[in-house]
């Protein structure tokens, strides 16, 4: 169904993006209200499949939502907070980080990405769209998607280095 299928897809994207149920609900609502308001435009342009079109609105609503939220948020980094709490338990290099903590750390690192980088990463890594599709959704060039993606992966990759030891992940201590 038009509404049924799309609401689930958009909610799940918005949730993966914000990691917050209420935020994802807000994005879902905003997406459908915008969809309704833009329907005239869709009919005129008519260049794309309807579900892709709604999905694109959902992506843009998510990015806008996060931008607004980031502007409001006080200036402290979740990452610093994380380092002070969980991170400090791992000051002993003999210890390796558990999977649950690693998951939490990755989640914080993804949250630290800029709204657009975060979306590029989610669309590629978790939703598994091609770079070409992402470029269409984000209305930018494939080159720009590649750059964003590289930066996002680098931003996640570097801080994790010190936590990944040979014991768990086959990595040499660096």
């Amino acid at each position, binding site marked *: 169904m*038009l509404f049924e299928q799309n609401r689930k897809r958009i909610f799940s994207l918005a949730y993966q993006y914000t990691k917050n149920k209420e935020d994802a*609900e807000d994005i879902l609502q905003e997406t459908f209200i915008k969809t309704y308001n833009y329907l005239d435009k869709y009919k005129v342009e008519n260049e794309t499949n309807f579900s892709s079109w709604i999905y694109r609105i959902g992506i843009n609503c998510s990015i806008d939502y996060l931008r607004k939220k980031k502007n409001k948020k006080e200036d402290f980094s979740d990452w610093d907070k994380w380092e002070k709490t969980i991170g400090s338990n791992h000051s002993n290099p003999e210890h390796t980080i558990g999977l649950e903590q690693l998951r939490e750390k990755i989640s914080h690192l993804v949250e630290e990405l800029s709204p657009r980088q975060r979306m590029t990463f989610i669309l590629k890594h978790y939703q598994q769209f091609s770079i070409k599709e992402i470029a269409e959704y984000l209305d930018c060039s494939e080159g720009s998607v590649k750059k964003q993606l590289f930066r996002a992966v680098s931003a996640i990759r570097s801080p994790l280095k010190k936590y990944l030891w040979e014991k768990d992940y086959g990595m040499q201590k660096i």
Partner: protein
Amino acid sequence: MACKKYKEKIVLHLYGELGENDAKDLMAHIEGCADCAEEFAYTQKIFQVLDETKTDDIPEANWEKCWNTIDVGIQGKERKKKSFLLYPRWAYASAALLIVFTVGFFFGRMAFLKPAESRSMLLEGSQSAMYPSIQEHFESLKPVLVEYANYTASPENGTITIDKNIVRNLIIQNILLKRMIADEDPSTKEILEDVDLVLREIANQEGDDAHTLSMIKELIQERGILYEIEVSKTI
């Protein structure tokens, strides 16, 4: 300098986004460059870690809250209509008269329309994948409408239980399609308006008493919705 370029390519390669020649070039470079070889191994590990730590748990949204906000946002202030069933009986009776008149007028007018005009692109849904199909929408409406249209008040019949969320989804879907049709297809738009009325009654239906169920049944019959839906297939 060249290594920076290869480091970008490593990420693309792991996402399967590197062409054959570029991939060969990358592998050749890695064989001769310890730095990039380490980068490759580490990035591969990171991808593995990302996969291992991935969770697919998506919570269930509060659909009722979402639905209400969407409905209010879409309909704006114009929709502050009272429930149709809450009108006094005399109002209902005169409304029914008006329907008879309008439907009569409408069919009279239909006769003057060329077939091509009474048929919208939306009705051809499956031929044109660009548009969600009105016919698919009608198909998803039918089970709900038939359920109410077949209702007969008797002790053994009990009540009708329908998931309100399904009905709410149908309402939003109905609104979106109605707006897409706009004035291109007046006959289909009219059906969707009637459908909207009935679905809202079902969604707002508090009690499952025989009286309310019979009223919804009457509304479906008065408006000839199931008949209209069938006719729209053959146009």
